[in-house]
C-alpha cells in the first residue's frame, strides 16, 4: 500500500478532507483559546464576588446586543484589522514589526495635514490624497527600520520600538506647536475639511468607510502574499532566507519592501481614525492599536483571513467592556486579563491542544515570527 499511495496520491475528496481537518485545527485552537480565557475570566469574576452571568451578558450586549453596539464594534475592528494586517505581513517576511504604533501615528499626522491643509478640492480628489498621504507616512516610518536592517543589519525589533517613540513625540510636538488650532482650547489640530472625510456608512452611526477599506485590505494583502511574485519572495525570505538568496531573491530588498508595506497598512489604520472618526488630531491622541495589533496577528497566525475575525474579537471585547462594568460592577481590567489569556493560549497553543486533547501538530509551522540577533 505505501508504494502505491506514494505514486498516485489522494483523490480530490481525500485532499479536501485533509485540507479541511487542517483548516479546522488551525481555526479551532484560537476559538478554544478564547473560550478557555472566558472560562478563566468567569472564575476570576466569581471569586471576586460578582455575578458572572450579568458580566458576560453585559459583555455580549455591549458588543453585539444592538445595531449601535455592533456598529461600534466594527468601528473598533477597522483599525485593528489594518494594523493587524501590518504586523502579519511583517511576520510573513520573518520581521517583527513592533512599530505599528509609530506608523499609525505618522499616518494619522500626514493625513490630517492634507485633510485640513488643502483647500478647494473636490472630495473625490481630496479624500484619496489625504489617504495616500497617510499611507505614505506609515510606509515611510516602516521603511526606515527596514532600510536600517537591510543596509547595516540593525535589528528591526529595536529600531521599530525607537521609531515608535520618535513618531509619537513628533506628532505631539507638532500638534502642540506648528499645527495647533489657535481657536481651540484643546491641544489639537484644526478639523479636516468635509471633502477629506471618510463618509459614514449608515446615517446616525459612527461606522465609516474605513471599514470597507479594511475589508478590501484583507483581500489585497492575501492577493499580494499568495498571488504575486512579490509575495512569493516575501514569504520565501521569511521562511528560509538562505534558500531564498540561493534561488536568486534579494533578502535586503524584501526586508525593505515588507517593512514598507507593513508601515503602509499601519499608516492607513491611523488615517482611518483621523479621516473617519476624529476629523482632527489631538495631542493626547491615544491609540494602542499598534500594540494590540501584534496580538491580533498572533491569533490570526499571520494569515490575512484570520486577521479580521481576530480584530472582531478584540473590538468586541473592548466595546463590550463598558456595559460589562456597568452591569456587574467589575473593572474593565478584567477584559485586559481575558485578552492576555487569549494571547497566551494562542501563543502557547500546546496548552490548548493538551487541554482539549487535540492532535499535536506534525506539520512544520509556516511562519517564523522572528529571528535571533545578527543572523
Amino acid at each position, binding site marked *: *500500500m*505505501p*508504494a502505491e*499511495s*506514494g*505514486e498516485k*496520491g*489522494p483523490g480530490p475528496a481525500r*485532499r479536501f478532507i*485533509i485540507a479541511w481537518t487542517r483548516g479546522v485545527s488551525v481555526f479551532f485552537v484560537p476559538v478554544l483559546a478564547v473560550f478557555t480565557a472566558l472560562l478563566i475570566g468567569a472564575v476570576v469574576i466569581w471569586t471576586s464576588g460578582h455575578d458572572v452571568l450579568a458580566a458576560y451578558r453585559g459583555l455580549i450586549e455591549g458588543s453585539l446586543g444592538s445595531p449601535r453596539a455592533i456598529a461600534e464594534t466594527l468601528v473598533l475592528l477597522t483599525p485593528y484589522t489594518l494594523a493587524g494586517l501590518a504586523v502579519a505581513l511583517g511576520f510573513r517576511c520573518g520581521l517583527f514589526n513592533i512599530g505599528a504604533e509609530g506608523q499609525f501615528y505618522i499616518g494619522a499626522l500626514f493625513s490630517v495635514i492634507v485633510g485640513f491643509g488643502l483647500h478647494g478640492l473636490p472630495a473625490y480628489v481630496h479624500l484619496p490624497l489625504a489617504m495616500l498621504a497617510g499611507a505614505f507616512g506609515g510606509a515611510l516610518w516602516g521603511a526606515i527600520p527596514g532600510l536600517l536592517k537591510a543596509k547595516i543589519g540593525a535589528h528591526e525589533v529595536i529600531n521599530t520600538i525607537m521609531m515608535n517613540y520618535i513618531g509619537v513625540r513628533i506628532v505631539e510636538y507638532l500638534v502642540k506647536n506648528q499645527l495647533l488650532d489657535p481657536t481651540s482650547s484643546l491641544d489639537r489640530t484644526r478639523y479636516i475639511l468635509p471633502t477629506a472625510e471618510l463618509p459614514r456608512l449608515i446615517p446616525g452611526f459612527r461606522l465609516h468607510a474605513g471599514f470597507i477599506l479594511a475589508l478590501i485590505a484583507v483581500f489585497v494583502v492575501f492577493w499580494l502574499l*499568495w*498571488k*504575486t*511574485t*512579490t*509575495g*512569493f519572495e516575501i*514569504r*520565501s525570505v521569511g*521562511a*528560509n532566507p*538562505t*534558500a*531564498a*538568496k*540561493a*534561488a*536568486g*531573491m*534579494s533578502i535586503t530588498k524584501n526586508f525593505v519592501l515588507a517593512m514598507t508595506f507593513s508601515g503602509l497598512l499601519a499608516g492607513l489604520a491611523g488615517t482611518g481614525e483621523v479621516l473617519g472618526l476624529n476629523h482632527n488630531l489631538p495631542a493626547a491622541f491615544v491609540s494602542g492599536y499598534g500594540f494590540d495589533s501584534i496580538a491580533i496577528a498572533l491569533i490570526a497566525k499571520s494569515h490575512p483571513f484570520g486577521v479580521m475575525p481576530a480584530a472582531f474579537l478584540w473590538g468586541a471585547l473592548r466595546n463590550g467592556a463598558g456595559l460589562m462594568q456597568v452591569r456587574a460592577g467589575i473593572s474593565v481590567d478584567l477584559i485586559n486579563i481575558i485578552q492576555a489569556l487569549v494571547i497566551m493560549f494562542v501563543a502557547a497553543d500546546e496548552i490548548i491542544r493538551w487541554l482539549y486533547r487535540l492532535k499535536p501538530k*506534525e*506539520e*512544520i*509551522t*509556516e511562519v517564523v515570527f522572528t529571528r535571533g540577533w545578527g543572523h
Partner: protein
Amino acid sequence: MALALSMRGISKAFPGVQANDQIDFDLERGEIHALLGENGAGKTTLMNILYGLYRADAGQIYLNGQEVHIATPSDAIAHGIGMVHQHFMLVPVFTVTENIMLGVESTRYGFFLNREQGGQRIRDISEEYGLEVDPEAYIKDIPVGIQQRVEIIKALYRQADILILDEPTSVLTPQEAEELFEIMRSLSAQGKSIIFITHKLKEVFAVADRITVLRDGRVVGTTTPDKATEAMLAEMMVGREVILTVEKEDPKVGEVVLEVEDLWVEDDRGLPVVNGVSFQVKGGEILGIAGVQGNGQTELVEALTGLRSPARGRVRILGADTTHASPREILEKGVGHIPEDRHKHGMVLSYPIADNLVLSTYYQAPFAHGIVIDGKAIDENGRKLIAEFDIRTPSEYASAGTLSGGNQQKLIVAREFSRPIKLLISAQPTRGLDVGSIEFIHQKLIERRDAGTAVLLVSVELDEVMALSDRIAVIYEGQIVETVLAAEATREGLGLLMAGARKESTIAR
C-alpha cells in the same frame, strides 16, 4: 542467547504513509543488530516508537520477555533503552560532564551540582568501554566524533542496556567510523545490545552480527553478514537489482563553460579559505573536486554561485565575468546549483513541493505574468516533475518538509534540471542519501554531461568523485594540489593528495 528485546506486529501510520506495517524485530543480548533500509523505509519510525517518541498504532514491545508500555523517552530510559540521535542533543557551551549529567544530576544537599561524583562515574564508564573523552572539555571545542562518544556515554550513564544508534556514521570521517565500530564491538562484548540504523552496506559487513532489512515499512528479511552480499542487500533494500557502479561513455568535450582564475575567497570570519584556485570546466565533462571536508569547498561553491563575494580573482561563465554577480544573474546565465546543504540553501521546507520546484523561476513565464503568479501553471509543473523525477509524495501540495532526504534531493535535481542549464554546480549531491537515490542522482548527472552540460562535482565521497568524474582536481587547504584524469587516478594516490602530499612524490603509476 536470550532476547533482550522483541517487537511484535508494530504498525504506525502517518497521514498518507504507512510508515511501519506489522513489523517484528528481535534483538539478542550482546548483539549488534543492523537495521538496514532506504530513507523512508521506516527504520527511524520504528526506533522512535521503541524510544517513546511516537506511539504505535498497534503491536507489543517485550523487554527480557516482559511486555512493556513505553509512552515517553523517560519510560524508555527507565527500561534501559538509550538512543543516540542523528543530530546530537548536546549543549555546546556546557562541558562533557555537565552534558552527561544534564537531567540526572548528582547533587550535594539536593541542590549543588556534584561534578566530582559525576565526573568519576564518567571516567569509570570511559575506561570500561574504551570511550576516551576529556570530562572537562567543552562540547563546542571537541570534534564531532568525540561528541558522539559523549552521547553514547550519556546513554550508558543512564544505565542503558540497549543502545539505538541512528545513522551514527553519517557525520564521521572513515577513520572516526572505524573507531566507532571498535567501541561498538567492545560494548557488545560487555553484554550491551546495539541496534545500528544505517543505509550504508559496507558498514553492515564491518560491524553487524545480524541484519534486518526494511522496505516501505515492512521487514523484507533478516540475515547475517556471512550469508549476505552487498548486491543482495541492496536489492532487498530497493526491491530490484541495483547497479552499484556507474556506467558512462567517453566524454564529448565542448567549449569552456566555467573558467576560474586565481580565485581567493574568505570565510565568515575573514580568514582565507580558498587561496588562488584556477580551473576550467568544459561542456560535456564532469570535473570532480575531491578533498576532505573543510578544505574550502563550501566557500568555493558559494563564490561560484554568487552567495559569497570573492576577495580577488576572476570567475567567467560562458565568457561573461560573474566574479561579483548576484545569484540571480548567475542562475540566469544557465547555471544549475545543487547546494551542499539542501535545507539551508535548497528549499523552503514549509512550502508545497510545487512551489519549491519554481523557487528560482517563479517570476518567469509561464509561472508568472507580470507580478501575478499563475498557480495552475506552478501546480501543473509540479505534477509533471514529480512524475518525471519519481518524487515520492502523496501530492504536489504536500510540504517539502514531509519528504524523505532522498526525495528532497530529487526535488532539487528536478528543479535545476527543468531549466535550460549549461553549467551544473553540484555540491555533495548524494550526502545522506540511500542507495536507490544515489543511483538515480548519479544517472541524472551523467545524462546531463552527455547532453553537453559542464558539470562541476564537489564531493567528499572519494568513491563518488572517482565513479563520475572525467577529471579530478584535489583540493587541500584551499588550493588545488593537482588535477588528474579520472581514468589514471588511483584511490591511494588521491588519498595522499587529499592529505596534502604533492604529486611528484606520491603518484607513482
